[in-house]
């Protein structure tokens, strides 16, 4: 019926809807005659000569434009979104609502803490909850995302070695399966990165680790469960090897959902950990962020935690700053990190409670194992068929790519037509034509079954109508987008001349 469909009249960029002279007087302050004059107090050389090109639209045009834009997104609230490593689970609406109470929203970060004790109490209690559930000795909430948590962690490792005068340690070990932020972080902290391979069973190659490690090793960055979706069984042994070599262990907490309340990074022997609250603690991903990446440490790294932290003396809460913690690696944000995200995580943690935490792990792992087994039964190849899935697992579409010339990317795009967001594709890099699938605990069995069916149907389509699959998607606001052109003919700012 395409011949009867019509492009919507409403879908240009906002600047195309803009008209000089339109304004929302309702949103601008009222100025009296003398106030509208050029401020004589500011020298002309510092004043702007011409108005910036911002949209000039009515309030309704703005509301309509952005409401319609929003409808072009897949999201947890509208679609199954099994994006591996990202833990796209339900974000309870209460967390948003309650974190946005006027008393919290209007609180200035530099206002005296006396006027924000309720807010401080939430943060303090969140610190305590995160300590307990990770088995670490102290927590600082300030990092604003996982990667900043990683930075804080590696900076603490560096500060620790430095404080002991152990300054020759210039290398950080990462598995080849590590998330890109791990090596990038190590470099930001002034380290060189040494990669070690992952074995065919998904575990780290301990022999390679032993070879790589030495007096130059500052530490190792691991996730467990790892990014290939399996639990590193020899973690205690690894910890011993690293510690014996004088290195420290960094835990990338992106995959905490799989083990929440089941096993604690602190108990595995890690010295420092970041958590992605936007994953495990269900704060929203917001089309890219914000998140929060608190860090927890073992005893020996405590002095180095980033500030500020929240301290409690009985019923009174206050900020701990560098003055209180002179060995701290310092501040990572102008104030105290993504406070509103922390509030949402706190509310979520309290709704779950002690008894809710292990359930997260149980049901996310149940969902992943179920999907893994069912997909295997439908003929898909698992990357690590000998292993249990954790909260996520990997399907490799290498065979399909070779035999049918239908790639993981093609499967991904066709899944969109079926109403499912695609899993993470092409990560981790070591698995060819990789689908990293993470259903999360908040999805029901029928949804998983629906996805499995869709995969099987696409497999059939790939066998019978490969060309059609290669040109997917068909039913979305856009057909397949030309990434290459996006980079080659760079158009990243709209110019009115068009």
């Amino acid at each position: 019926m395409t011949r009867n469909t019509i492009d919507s009249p409403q879908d240009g960029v906002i600047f195309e809807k803009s008209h000089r002279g339109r304004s929302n007087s309702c949103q601008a302050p009222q100025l009296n005659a003398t106030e509208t004059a050029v401020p004589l107090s500011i020298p002309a050389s510092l004043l702007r000569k011409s108005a910036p090109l911002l949209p000039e639209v009515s309030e309704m045009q703005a509301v309509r434009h952005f409401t319609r834009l929003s409808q072009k997104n897949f999201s947890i609230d509208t679609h199954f979104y099994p994006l591996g490593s990202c833990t796209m689970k339900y974000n309870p609406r209460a967390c948003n609502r309650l974190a946005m109470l006027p008393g919290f929203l209007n609180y200035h970060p530099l206002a005296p803490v006396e006027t924000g004790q309720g807010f401080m109490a939430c943060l303090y209690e969140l610190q305590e909850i995160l300590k307990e559930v990770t088995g670490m000795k102290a927590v600082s909430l300030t990092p604003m995302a996982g990667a900043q948590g990683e930075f804080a962690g590696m900076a603490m490792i560096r500060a620790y070695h430095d404080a002991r005068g152990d300054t020759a340690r210039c290398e950080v070990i990462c598995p080849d399966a590590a998330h890109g932020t791990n090596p990038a972080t190590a470099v930001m902290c002034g380290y060189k990165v040494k990669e070690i391979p992952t074995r065919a069973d998904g575990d780290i190659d301990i022999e390679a680790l032993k070879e790589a490690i030495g007096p130059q090793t500052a530490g190792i960055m691991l996730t467990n469960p790892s990014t290939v979706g399996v639990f590193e069984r020899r973690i205690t042994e690894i910890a011993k090897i690293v510690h014996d070599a004088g290195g420290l262990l960094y835990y990338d907490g992106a995959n905490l959902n799989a083990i929440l309340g089941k096993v604690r990074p602190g108990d595995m022997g890690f010295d420092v950990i970041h958590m992605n609250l936007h994953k495990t603690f269900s704060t929203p991903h917001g089309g890219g962020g914000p998140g929060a990446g608190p860090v927890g440490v073992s005893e020996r790294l405590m002095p180095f935690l980033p500030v500020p932290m929240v301290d409690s003396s009985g019923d009174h809460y206050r900020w701990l700053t560098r003055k209180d913690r002179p060995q701290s690696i310092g501040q990572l944000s102008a104030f105290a990190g993504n406070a509103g995200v922390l509030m949402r995580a706190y509310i979520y943690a309290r709704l779950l409670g002690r008894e809710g935490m292990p359930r997260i792990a149980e049901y996310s792992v149940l969902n992943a194992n179920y999907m893994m087994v069912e997909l295997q039964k439908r003929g898909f190849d698992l990357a690590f068929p000998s292993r249990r899935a954790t909260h996520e697992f990997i399907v490799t579409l290498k065979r399909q790519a070779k035999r049918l010339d239908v790639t993981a990317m093609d499967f991904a795009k066709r899944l969109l037509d079926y109403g499912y967001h695609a899993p993470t594709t092409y990560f981790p890099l070591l698995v060819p034509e990789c689908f990293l699938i993470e259903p999360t605990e908040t999805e029901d069995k029928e949804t998983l079954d629906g996805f499995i069916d869709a995969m099987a149907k696409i497999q059939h389509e790939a066998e019978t109508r490969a060309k059609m699959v290669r040109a997917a998607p068909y039913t979305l606001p856009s057909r397949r987008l030309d990434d290459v052109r996006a980079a080659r003919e760079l158009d990243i700012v709209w110019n009115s001349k068009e």
Partner: protein
Amino acid sequence: MPFIPHTETDVQQMLTSIGVSDIADLFDEIPAELRIGSLDKIPTGLNEMAMSRLMHERAAGPQPLCFIGAGAYEHHIPAAIWEIVTRGEFYSAYTPYQAEASQGTLQLIYEYQTMMAHLTGMEASNASLYDGASGLAEAVLMAVRANRKSKSKRILMPATVNPAYRRVAQTIVENQGITLEVVDYQPGSGAIDTASLPAEPGDVAALVIPQPNFFGVLEEVNGLTDWAHAHGMLVIAVVNPTSLALLTPPGEWGEQGADIVCGEGQPLGVPLAGGGPYFGFMCCNLKHVRQMPGRIVGRTVDADGKPGFALTLQAREQHIRRSKATSNICTNQGLVVAAATIYMTLLGAQGLHKVALKSHQNRQALCEQLQMIDGVTSAFASASFHEFVIQFDGVSADEVLDRLLAEGILGGFNLSADYPALGEAILVCATETKTEADISAYQSALSRVMETLKGSAA
């Protein structure tokens, strides 16, 4: 079970399919000795009703009239913004990896990039960094990478840059051996004295220029920019986005304009919220865009030739480039950027100009009234945006602030820790949210406070 949809039947069917008898079996690869016993220190779960009541109690309390700025600013936030931003489709989506399923987020970011580029007078913008402070740190790292003329890791960092930003930049860049060298300000003006800058600064990667600076004072950005460029430095502008509706955009500073522009996006429709989430913006010209950290969205076409949007220049990023990436940033502040985009759309150039102007006028009025009070002096007579510094004669700034608070007024930010040379001094801010009545309320409260304190001192 909160948020878990499984019925007993579902669980049984799933376990059967997997071939285990119990969920516990799925954890059998975890060494037994590592398993947790209990989580005693975590309270048991609350239902939403109880949690809601607790949070309402914690959010309650008087809301004093706020004259603190110092990096976070109270502005009017149109109601439409957060009603749209918290729509599930924006709120619960993630980074637009699947472009076709994320055109909403992608187009919005493209529009945001455009607005920020126009506001700063630059050619490119990224899709956000964490906040203004960490954004400045990234700008410093970028400048060191981008300055082809310089081999230096020295950065000139004026004392008039927000001290918190300087601390954050220090934390982040020091591990790479980058040094931040302080440039002092002129005590009289509260700004950098262009005339007294060294004729031979040596090899320096970049000069940071705050506008307005931390005291609210306007720097001589044109002279500073030209001086920096003359000595082979890049210029990093740290700007307040609201002020740009009024002030020369960094792209037009001096002869060639600034090279990297960064700053805190919070004033653009983002609530104070105890300090976050806010967002850091960063702009540059096209010649440096491949050195820029963070996501960038580009416009392209789809298989039918229709315009559409996708992430671009990803070869700068950690997920492609790993240890060679421009930054480790992955999750950014997308939702807050959505708020800022809607804010700029609702306000438009005219509206933003009025916000800037009204804030400036309110600052002028308040500053004038406060310095008439006995024992209160304005520290700097220079041109300013919406903040100013006042000094107290013979009374402690802390004491003054405490007493103002007792009268329901957050009087400002105490500068004595960061700038001891200023004596007992506070930084005061007045934005467009303040009415004439608010300004007089502050004036009369401070008069009373000063009288009392002077009296008790005498």
